[in-house]
């Protein structure tokens, strides 16, 4: 896929024919220097933005053909998001934040129990009734993980989930994501500039000048260099 911003002389190519595939259940890292297009790529996969050219297939669905409402529903049911700054809604409690994607989906059946179970899994069952702005950064990121998983999505997308955390908390969050991926057999796509903290992963995609390469040291990059 290709993504350009601006027009004429001000046109910037954020993604340049980036092509790759990810298998179900893989734990994938997207790496690259600042401004290389990692977050843009994640936004395209997460259907938060549309490519200027090209297509994004998820579970065999060409998402570029979906209407806006269907994209919203797709995001809600098939995708889970974990952001760098957790992005919890501070007007809600920890539990209400985790419940929110399920309430948006309108499937409230076992929502309360599922949310409580997830919060237990991430070790925050004692904090569930606290306002989201009353917990620490590390706890907030764990809540964000629980929120990202509540609808049992096919793919979990994380944009620098440890970028705002100290090394000890980062380690905890990474271990948590890896264990959840294994336990729930979910695909995790994580944008990071610290791949070494993640240990063994299924795949690394490197973004350089808007182009995607599989692996950390793409031969093509060396040739170009």
């Amino acid at each position, binding site marked *: 896929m290709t993504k350009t911003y601006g027009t004429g002389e001000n046109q910037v190519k954020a993604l340049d024919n980036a092509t790759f595939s990810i298998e179900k259940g893989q734990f994938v890292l997207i790496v690259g220097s600042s401004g290389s297009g990692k977050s843009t790529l994640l*936004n395209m996969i*997460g259907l*938060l*933005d549309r490519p200027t050219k090209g297509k994004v297939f998820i579970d065999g669905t060409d998402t570029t053909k979906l209407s*806006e*409402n269907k994209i*919203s*529903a797709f*995001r*809600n*049911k098939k995708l889970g*998001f974990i*952001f760098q700054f957790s*992005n919890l*809604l*501070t*007007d*809600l409690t920890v539990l*209400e934040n985790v*419940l*929110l*994607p399920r*309430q*948006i*989906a309108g499937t409230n059946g076992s929502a309360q129990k599922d949310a409580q179970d997830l919060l237990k899994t991430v070790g925050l069952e004692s904090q569930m009734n606290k306002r989201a702005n009353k917990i620490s950064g590390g706890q907030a990121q764990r809540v964000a993980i629980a*929120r990202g998983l509540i609808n049992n999505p096919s793919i979990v997308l994380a944009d620098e989930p440890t970028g705002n955390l100290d090394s000890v908390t980062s380690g905890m969050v990474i271990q948590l994501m890896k264990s959840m991926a294994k336990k729930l057999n979910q695909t995790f796509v994580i944008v990071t500039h610290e791949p070494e903290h993640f240990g063994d992963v299924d795949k690394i995609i490197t973004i350089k000048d808007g182009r995607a390469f599989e692996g950390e040291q793409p031969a093509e990059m060396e040739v170009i260099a």
Partner: protein
Amino acid sequence: MEYRLRLAKRMLFNKKGSLIGAVLAVTIGILVIHVNFVIFQGLFDAIVRDISNYRNGDILVTDEADYIDKSDLALANWFERIPFVQGATPRLSSSAEINMTKNGKLIEETRVPVVGVDPYRDVKASTVHETVADGTYVLNRNSVILGTNVARDLGDAQVGDSLKLLIVDRTGEDQIRRFNVAGIMKSPGGQGFDYSVVMHIDTLRDMMGRSGESSSFIVKLNDPSKAFEVKEFFLTAFPNDDFLAETIEESAEEQLAGFRSGIAMINMIGYFGMMSSAFAIVTIQMMLVNGKTREIGVMRSIGAKRKDILIIFIFQGMIIGAIGAGVGTAAGLGYTFYAKETKMSFNNSLPLEVSYNWEKIIQTALTSFSLAIIASLYPSYRATKLLPVEAMRTV
């Protein structure tokens, strides 16, 4: 609770300054309308009340061509058989020239309105007798009651003073008689007889040469809402007389028409005030939307549709409208209660006739509630236009 309503409530209640500002805007809009209503409608109703109490009753009967020549007894008895009628009394009007010597100085007043009353029937059909501030009401045929302004113009006439009154009779002859001042009348608001002289109707009939005749008959009802019914019944009962019977709305129309349009204009100003509060809500809600840009982006990214965001902010408008309408109505009712209980008046003028117009109170509350929702539409629409990626970049 529905999650969108809960979010709307939390977002609003966590921004107390904005909530208070928006609620105050609605409250003030409603309060302005209530205050306007209490003052101007109260003044209007007070004037109607005084015209009815002092001059026209609930039904005013006159003769289309001339004076009423049917006997007082016959007409009063006819009316008083009807259960809704509190009393019926004849009145006779004329004008007079008054001479009075005060402190050795002769004072003359011309063209002073004179009203003849039947003192025994009048106390049942009007409250003129209650306006006697000094002395007594008409007790005998040789006494008069002076309006406070007439007394002042006569060199500060007092109870017990003597004066000469000249009236031109129906043949053009001057009729002069001497009277004692039995009382001084004073009433706030200008609808009483402060500029008139009141005397016994039979004395005035004698002087005018109109024995048994009356200018009008005023009828006071226990239940003024039956005025039209009683009027129609009366006209049907006397088809061959040239009677003209009018309810207070009809007989006072000329005096009240200008006032009525004034009230309509004041009400318009009140509703413009309410519109201003709607603009205040738009501004405050735009601030709320701007303050929640990041949250809107997050919600959109986890699957909320534009419709969901729209509903959240419309719920906020509904909450603002509901609280504002509640507080505003309560404040308005409080003011109305205060005005009613204290018989509010301005500069010692006539006390306002305060009433609870529930239809208008509910209409005002519903209008402001609806306006708050309408005012929230644009900010809500703007909120839906935020793109998730761009919204989440906002810090």
